[in-house]
């Protein structure tokens, strides 16, 4: 049992951390493992074990957000109210700005970005976890990235180069 926990703890916690935020990640991850251990005997094997565990993780995270009453969708009007990050913000590494922007995404977009781009799962795996078609997954990923680009502002590539340049100079 403990072996199963250690095998999946990082990914489960990482997914929870980036979907619900750092303050609630431990609670959600614990809930996931309790469900895994109590449900493992009834696991029917109709998907890979990892797929099942990650599905539990995403569902638990999204349910947690719904219970907490976070906003499910931000319309275009909502996005326009967010301040556009300054391109020349010297002290903010791109990574921390990406984390901030990720937290501002609607939960569904956040989930697909975390699964595919952060955790590196394939489209097929993401579709199995989210229980949707692969085409739907790809479409959601495209929209999620588009929202991220809006939140991060223009010239993300230039921001990345500035961060790299700053790191190089400080070394």
């Amino acid at each position, binding site marked *: 049992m403990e072996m199963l926990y250690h095998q999946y703890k990082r990914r489960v916690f*990482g997914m929870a951390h980036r979907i619900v935020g750092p303050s609630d990640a431990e609670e959600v991850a614990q809930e996931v493992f309790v469900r895994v251990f109590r449900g493992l005997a009834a696991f029917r094997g109709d998907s890979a074990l990892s797929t099942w565990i990650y599905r539990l993780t995403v569902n638990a995270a999204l349910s947690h957000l719904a219970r907490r009453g976070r906003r499910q969708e931000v319309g275009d009007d909502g996005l326009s109210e967010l301040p556009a990050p300054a391109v020349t913000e010297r002290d903010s590494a791109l990574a921390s700005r990406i984390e901030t922007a990720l937290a501002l995404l609607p939960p569904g977009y956040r989930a697909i970005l975390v699964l595919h781009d952060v955790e590196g799962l394939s489209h097929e795996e993401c579709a199995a976890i989210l229980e949707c078609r692969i085409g739907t997954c790809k479409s959601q990923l495209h929209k999620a990235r588009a929202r991220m680009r809006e939140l991060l502002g223009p010239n993300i590539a230039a921001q990345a180069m500035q961060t790299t340049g700053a790191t190089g100079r400080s070394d």
Partner: protein
Amino acid sequence: MTTCETIQPRLTAYLDGDLDGESGSVVRGHLRECAACRQVARDGAALRDGLRLLPPVDPPMSMWAGVQAQLAAAEVADARKPRWRRTVARWARWAPWPPTMPQYAAGAALAATAVVMLYWRTQRVDELAPDAVAVAPIRTEPPHPLRTEPMAPALVASAGDDVTADLLAEPARTTESYAQVIEELMKLASEARTAWGDEQKAAFDTRLAALRTGIDHAAQGRPQQRAQRALIRYLQLAVVRDDVMLAGGGAR
């Protein structure tokens, strides 16, 4: 002719390497000529790379203790439940939603209908196949040289052929899926096995051999899947609980 409106929606797939051959070439060709789309592509790549490079997050050391505490609390709660509620909970584990009385009836009716329809459909396929073959020999005129299907096409399911093939392929997919799960659980069980005593290891090995023999000797299709599910249940118990002897039904 490609435009920015047709290319930009494809950039995500292009940056992920999902566009091959001509599709990829079309996008690349447009990017060579369009500075605006090139910038969007650069930003998309920087975002993709930035997400990939986000550092992994380590769980706190206290998390395992929290899991154990919650499991213990859940088991205490189970022990306090009246027997009928435990039975309902056992049934609910196999249902996709929390059961209520009306849903019991609806779920049971739906399941029964699905089983009947599936049985009727597979039976109908079995009935049709021999008839389709039997029809051909009793035709009085030779078949048209270009006709590849027998006469009386109404007896052969045409619109349903794809569905029939899909249904016939389902058992093989299920068997393969179970085999993959067994492989994953075997890895976990093998790791757990290293911490067992000799008696437990022997019990596990004996039971495992018996279950594997059951799978090997079972007829393809449902009998083999039943045997696979038995092995899956055994491996799940071996991984979740170290009580291998109890799972194997042996004496301690």
